[in-house]
């Protein structure tokens, strides 16, 4: 086997694993979300299909698959059909440069579950998630429904505003790591948990967390689909598998921002405890730490949904432009100056 063919094979296997895991993660997340929300609300949630209702996502999938595809007569057909595909495609594309767990030795090579370890990983994510808004805007516009249009408008305004804050929150990490590679940023956090970026770059973490919640349109920032105001926002007219695709895109985006949160701010696969062994019986323990962190923050998103009401549109925009972006910008300046003056910065 030539090195090229080998490389291609490895990448192909990685793609299958990552996409498969994400789709599996999406299904499990729907179940976890429904069950945990139910327990927060004195309900039981889905518990009929399989043990603890774990097969519910499969039942949902079958149901959605066999539901009638409805399209409004006045809809713009091709745009209407394309919008969910755009949403899912961009959501999946962004996941390509993210490392899922630590590098490990297998088959005589050093492997990592990461489809492409590119030098400008963060920039790539930034670029692709910016494209994700097209799925929402097109969906909102193509359906020819006023509520969809309002949802699309809200969504585009919200994503543009909060993407700025999101980008700002990464700047100091990039400065400190002197790299756009996510692996490099993770490696700067090795050792004790006081090296984690959440400690070092605490303001950036706050900005990132809020902006990410807004970016994936979760409560309290779920205005694009605020069902009590604009019915279901941009996906009001979607049914069947197209609806499932939009849901899938949303959950994948949520997993993406959570994985990034764990990687960029919480030390990724580093345990945060000095002297902790790297592996146990050949199994890299990094997967455990990383998995726990990701699971915890996914739960935090559900927890927020179970607790908070939704912002109003103008409050959301004001919060983004008048609070988050200034905080992020001031933090970038402060950190840059301190870094040069106090030490550690470029000579």
């Amino acid at each position, binding site marked *: 086997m030539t090195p090229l063919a080998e490389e291609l094979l490895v990448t192909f296997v990685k793609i299958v694993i990552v996409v498969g895991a994400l789709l599996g993660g999406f299904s499990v997340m729907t179940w976890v979300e429904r069950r945990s929300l139910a327990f927060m609300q004195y309900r039981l949630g889905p518990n009929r299909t399989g043990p603890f209702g774990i097969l519910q996502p499969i039942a949902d999938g079958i149901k959605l698959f066999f539901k009638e595809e409805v399209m409004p007569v006045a809809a713009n057909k091709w745009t209407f059909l394309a919008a969910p595909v755009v949403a899912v495609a961009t959501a999946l594309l962004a996941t390509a440069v993210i490392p899922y767990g630590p590098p490990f030795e297998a088959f005589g090579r050093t492997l990592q579950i990461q489809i492409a370890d590119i030098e400008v990983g963060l920039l790539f994510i930034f670029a692709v998630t910016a494209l994700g808004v097209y799925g929402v805007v097109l969906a909102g516009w193509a359906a020819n429904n006023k509520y969809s249009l*309002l949802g699309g*408008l809200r969504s585009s305004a919200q994503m543009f505003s909060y993407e700025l804050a999101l980008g700002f929150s990464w700047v100091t990490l990039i400065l400190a790591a002197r790299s756009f590679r996510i692996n490099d940023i993770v490696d700067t956090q090795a050792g004790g948990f006081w090296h984690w970026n959440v400690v070092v770059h605490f303001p950036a973490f706050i900005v990132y967390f809020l902006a990410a919640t807004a970016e994936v349109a979760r*409560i309290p920032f779920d205005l694009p689909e*605020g069902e009590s105001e604009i019915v279901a926002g941009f996906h009001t007219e979607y049914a069947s598998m197209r609806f499932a695709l939009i849901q899938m895109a949303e959950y994948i985006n949520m997993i993406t921002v959570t994985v990034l949160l764990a990687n960029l701010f919480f030390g990724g696969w580093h345990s945060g405890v000095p002297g902790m062994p790297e592996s146990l019986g050949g199994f890299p323990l990094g997967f455990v730490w990383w998995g726990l962190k990701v699971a915890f923050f996914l739960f935090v998103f559900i927890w927020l949904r179970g607790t908070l009401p*939704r912002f*109003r549109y103008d409050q959301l925009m004001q919060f983004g432009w008048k609070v988050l972006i200034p905080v992020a910008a001031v933090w970038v300046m402060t950190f840059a100056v301190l870094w040069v003056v106090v030490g550690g910065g470029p000579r």
Partner: protein
Amino acid sequence: MASVTNTNTAPPVSPEVLAKPAARALREALGDRVLSIEDFRGDLTITVERRAWVEAARQLRDHADCDFKLFLDLCGVDYLDREDRPERFEVVLHLYSVSRKHHVRLKTPVPESDPRVDTITGVFRGANWFEREAWDLYGIVFKGHPNLIRLLTHESFVGHALRKDYPTAKRHVLKSSKEVLVDIPPGSENLLVNIGPSHPSMHGTFRVQALMDGETVRDAEAEIGYMHRNFEKMAEERTYWQIIPYTDRLNYCSSFMNGHGWALAVEKLLGVPAPPRAEAVRVILSEFSRIMDHIICVSTNVVDLGAITPYFVMFRAREDIYTLLEACSGARLTVSYVRIGGLAQDVPDNFEALCRAALASVQEVVEAGDKLLTRNIIFMKRFKDIGVMDRDEALSWGWAGPCLRGSGVDYDVRKDHPYSGYEQYDFDVPVGTVGDCFDRYLVRMEEMRQSVRIVEQALAQLPGGPVITDDKRVAIPPKSEVYSNIEALMNHFKLIYEGILPPPGETYGYTEGANGELGFYIVSDGQKHPWRVKVRPPCYNIYQAFPHMIRGGMLADAIAIIGGLNVIAGELDR
């Protein structure tokens, strides 16, 4: 009954009636244009000439001795073929003076040949929909009304449904809906959005049409009547107790209170009080119903804000209350538990235990809801200074109940005109200061706690004895006597066959419903069916102001406001 009717000169009126300042003031101001002043069962009724109608309403509102600032109700009555009435129609206005704690009824006869009267929308803003309703159902034209179109029935409905000569079996097939409700300025690029009749946060079937500039509501108009079934027409063909199940369908979130209000109104007309035990049980179940209503209002309101957990947390208490109601009446939602003169049957043996259980769960959920919401920063941002209704506006619209108290008016029927023994219980009436959504929320939360206090006191001193009056003209004798005793059998037969026969006259019975003053204006001609029943549904006045409140605000504010007004379609559309 102190009544003198003389249409030629200023009527001679008995001194005790004239001693009432409103009567004196109006007679001084209008002279012989006042046709009669009557006092029946404590209701002051002033009849004026048609040309003095607006002047009389304004005098009642502005005269220092009157101060009837709170608009309650306006309706038409059809006296077809009645020799004792000068004209076929009558327009009836009910007002209340918060400062003097007094109700008044102002009437004017309107001839069939020229069924026109001047509008009083310039005096009371709340008269708008009431006049439209009177036009819709009676065909009485209100000259100068800004928008005199049908309200409860469909726009292409033919005839006036509440007229006595309207054929009740007549059917209309009406399919089309009115496309545009608001005035769209020419060249407008704003988006016209229909919010409802089926929309996630229009709880029930309300339709609001909004002209949107982005997220801002430029103009809005409401359309109601989707659930109109003409309760009042049905009531004219039922006996007094047959109407009780219909009242359950008015505000179905607190159905017991409607029956309570109806029974009290009829008892006022009859002059037959219910025994103390029945009154105490009525108070307990009414207060529980009020709690349920407030729970529904508060928790669905926050669902509309995107917070779903408080809804599930708070709704649990309703289950215990429904269990209590079911144990008493056999039904959960539409209880039909009251009877004229008392209750259908005595409460079960475990009544107190069920009440205690329900009380405990109410206290738990109110505190849990309070923790989840009251100091939540996002919640406060969504509610504070949103939907502000100032005191005078609220009175002019005819608001009542928690919404009126949220605007700072200290008026609670339970406190100011105690009925069913409310004077025995110690409770506070919470009043807001700003009149925004947050004040209305706080008032409701506090009222739930006060209701708990009332129930606890009523339980502690629950009297024994019968639960229905022993007046043979009103209450059916017990079955054991009917089967064993010929007098009781005859009495039972007479009551079932002839019904309750109240004296001729008209009364306005009012109670504090969950949304405010729930009034029943009953006109009796001495027969077994009421001649006319008019409900004053509290949320009708409140919802009327809604399109005006949301103009200029954000769409999301409109959603936050409507939930806090607690508009119930069954009561709104009747």
